[in-house]
Each structure stands twice: as structure tokens, then as C-alpha cells.
């Protein structure tokens, strides 16, 4: 019968050694298969890279335990992280269950001040230089940070910061207080037991999702082969699409893991459709709170409809006006330009838009990719 493999990870520091040994014995006593460098992993022959072997062991484990004390560990300059941090990254990347404990004092110092200082420093660096600070730069900053006590290695703060950005909870490791490992692993078993009976449901959902994707593919392949009659009522047609475009939050990403909610937009409250007719874009229909302008000259640079048309046959663009407090998502398909109006949340102004323009575009386009593809295909197939 397969046993649960548990990788025990930490920096090799004296304060953590008794704890590592104790956890190893408890896990062994419970019938699991703990993996730990000083017990059953190393040392390997000199021709084998110990870091790579440790990372392989992390991959082969079912559960990854990380203990953080006051030492940062061996910094691998080529990787830009410590060996322990590499193990943590590998565990997360491979989708392992990750449990983290940190020395209670270290954790309290981090969350009471250093976390926010580091956030500010990173946001400032990103704004100034357009890129995330290099690890050595961040370590220099942390060395000069007044909130950081000298007896704790600055790399510990970088590791905790990464853990926090990934949304992983850090448990307290209080010195002199025995952790109830048996209770902890019983709780893990309980959580697994809740999910295991759902296996058929999860598998079924995956199958249905694949079928839906296959159907969408078929539709996308067939629609360009047919000519469609225009709908009896374009207003109803537009409104059917508009109703499906929801409001959402807008998140800004800092690097790969860090993200921040920077605003929102409301559900689409209007839509319009124009079609090229000679030298102008002629009004076809609108719905919701859109006003009808009969036509725009193709060279009218004040019109988002004419501007989008001029960008090419498959152009799409998100526009913003501060006076109207709206985002306009324009999509061109052949001779048509469809526009969807999203009221911007109250926090938006020009400066905010300029700062977060890419996040705004991703937040509006990203959740609607399939819908927009379908709209394009339908418009593209309409009889002239």
C-alpha cells in the first residue's frame, strides 16, 4: 500500500534541528514516509547535484512541510533564491500540498511592519523602473530597513513575502510549545476524505468541460462556412449579448505572483453596432443607454467606432473617457464595429487609467474571449 511521502524542509540551523527530528519521528510513527536530508535523503555521491536531488525528492512527495526560523540559508546567485526557497517554489509549482510554519517572533515582526515596507518598496521600484526589484536589490533594502532586527537574516523576509503573495497561510512556531502533529495530520486526513468521494463529480465536470470546448471548436469551424440572414431585430440581438457582459474587479499584477485589486467596472449598460457604408460608418442599432449617431466619417478621429475600424479587419480596442466615466470595448468584424459600454467604478480618473491601462484592458477582454469570438464569427457571416 502506498504511503504518504512528506518532505521536511528548512534551513539547516541549530534552532530547528530538534523540531525536524521530532516531526520525522512522529510521521514515521504514524506510518507515513517522511523525507529529510539528515535522515534518509543525503548525502549523494559527489557527481550528483544535491540541490537537484532535493528538488526531485520534493517532486516525489505528497506533502511539503516548511519550517522557517531566523536564518535565510544558502543563496544560489544563479537562481536568485536560496536552496530552501527553491524547494518551496518546486513544491508550489508541482501542485503539492504546502504547509508552512514560522518562528512566532519572526512572523510577528514580518506582519507588523516589514511586509508593508516591502510591498511599498516593490511597488515603488516597479513604478520607477518598470520591473520587479532583483533579489540582491531587495536584500539591500531589507538590510537598511529599520523594522528588521539584525539577528534575523534579511532573506527570511523575502521568503515570507513570497509565501504571503501566493496566499499560503503561515502557522506559528512557538519555542518550547509542542505542536500537536497527530491532530494536525488527522485534520489533513479529514480534508482529503471530504474530497475523495467527489472524484466522480470532478471527473464528470472535466468531461463536460471538454465537450463544451469541442462544441465551441465545431461552431467556430462551421460558422465561417455559412451565410447568415441579419436578425429580425438588431436591438434584441445586441441586447442578448449585452446582458451577458458582467461587471468585474480590475487586478494589477506585479510580477508573476503579486496582485492587487485596483478598481472595478460595472456590467455592460449599452451596446451599439455600426457598419461601413462607403466613406462612413452607418448606424445599425443600439440598446441600453447608448445614443444613436446616424453615421461617422471613416476619417473621424474623434469617434471610437471610426478609429477601431481604421485599425484593421480584426481590431479591438478599449477606450476610456473621464467625463463619461466609461470604458468602451470596440470590436471590429469585417464591415462591422460593435461597441460595449462599461461604466467605470467611481475610483477611476485619467491618472489611474494611465497607470493601470494594461490591467483595465486585460480585465475587460480576458473574461469575454469566447463571447467576443462568437460575436465576430456571427457578424462575419452576415449577408451584406
Amino acid at each position, binding site marked *: 500500500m502506498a504511503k504518504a511521502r512528506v518532505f521536511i524542509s528548512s534551513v539547516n540551523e541549530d534552532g530547528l534541528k530538534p523540531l525536524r527530528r521530532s516531526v520525522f519521528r512522529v510521521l514515521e510513527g504514524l506510518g507515513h514516509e517522511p523525507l529529510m536530508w539528515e535522515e534518509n535523503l543525503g548525502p549523494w555521491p559527489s557527481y550528483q547535484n544535491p540541490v537537484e536531488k532535493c528538488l526531485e525528492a520534493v517532486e516525489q512527495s505528497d506533502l511539503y512541510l516548511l519550517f522557517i526560523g531566523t536564518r535565510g540559508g544558502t543563496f544560489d546567485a544563479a537562481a536568485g533564491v536560496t536552496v530552501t526557497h527553491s524547494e518551496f517554489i518546486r513544491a508550489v509549482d508541482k501542485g503539492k500540498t504546502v504547509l508552512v510554519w514560522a518562528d512566532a517572533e519572526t512572523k510577528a515582526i514580518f506582519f507588523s511592519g516589514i511586509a508593508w515596507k516591502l510591498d511599498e518598496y516593490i511597488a515603488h521600484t516597479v513604478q520607477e523602473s518598470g520591473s520587479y526589484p532583483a533579489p540582491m536589490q531587495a536584500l539591500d533594502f531589507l538590510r537598511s530597513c529599520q523594522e528588521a532586527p539584525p539577528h534575523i537574516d534579511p532573506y527570511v523576509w523575502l521568503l515570507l513575502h513570497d509565501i504571503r503573495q501566493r496566499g499560503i497561510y503561515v502557522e506559528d512556531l512557538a519555542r518550547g510549545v509542542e505542536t500537536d502533529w497527530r491532530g494536525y495530520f488527522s485534520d489533513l486526513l479529514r480534508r482529503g476524505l471530504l474530497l475523495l468521494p467527489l472524484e466522480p463529480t470532478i471527473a464528470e465536470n472535466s468531461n463536460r468541460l471538454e465537450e463544451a470546448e469541442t462544441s465551441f471548436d465545431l461552431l467556430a469551424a462551421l460558422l465561417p462556412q455559412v451565410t447568415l440572414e441579419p436578425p429580425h431585430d438588431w436591438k434584441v440581438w445586441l441586447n442578448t449579448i449585452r446582458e451577458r457582459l458582467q461587471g468585474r474587479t480590475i487586478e494589477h499584477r506585479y510580477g508573476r505572483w503579486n496582485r492587487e485589486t485596483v478598481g472595478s467596472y460595472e456590467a455592460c449598460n449599452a451596446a451599439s453596432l455600426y457598419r461601413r457604408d462607403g466613406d462612413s460608418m452607418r448606424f445599425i442599432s443600439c440598446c441600453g443607454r447608448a445614443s444613436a449617431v446616424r453615421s461617422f466619417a471613416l476619417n473621424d478621429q474623434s469617434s471610437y467606432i471610426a478609429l477601431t475600424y481604421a485599425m484593421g479587419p*480584426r481590431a479591438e480596442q478599449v*477606450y476610456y473617457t473621464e467625463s463619461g466615466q466609461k470604458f468602451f470595448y470596440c470590436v471590429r468584424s469585417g464591415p462591422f464595429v460593435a461597441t460595449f459600454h462599461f461604466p467605470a467604478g467611481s475610483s477611476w480618473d485619467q491618472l489611474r487609467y494611465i497607470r493601470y491601462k494594461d490591467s483595465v484592458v486585460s480585465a475587460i477582454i480576458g473574461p469575454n474571449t469566447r463571447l467576443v469570438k462568437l460575436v465576430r464569427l456571427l457578424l462575419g457571416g452576415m449577408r451584406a
Partner: protein
Amino acid sequence: MKNGIWVSKNGRVSEASGLQPRDALLFAPHGMTSEDLLQEQRSALQQNIKLIRTRLAEATRR
């Protein structure tokens, strides 16, 4: 049209520099189209389904 912020005001489009009139139309060409994003989403979806199936097979193996 290169990346950056563009503005349509007084009937002309130009690269935006500094604050613009409140009724100006701002836009920023984006590196990713909805088609690019759709491909990314589909690729992620397939990987997720594969991971779920692998894990379910491991979890229910005796």
C-alpha cells in the same frame, strides 16, 4: 500604432503626454488580443484537466 497612451481630442489622435481634457478619449494598444488570450485560457484549461485526472487516478489507486 506603438504601445503607450494615445488620445483623441479636437478631432485628432496623438500620443498622450500629461493630463488631457476630461472629455478626451484615451486608449492604449495592448500586446494581447482576445484571440491570444483565448488560446492561453484554452491551454491552461487543458493542463488543469490533465492535472485533475492525474491526481484523481493517483488518489484512487490502491
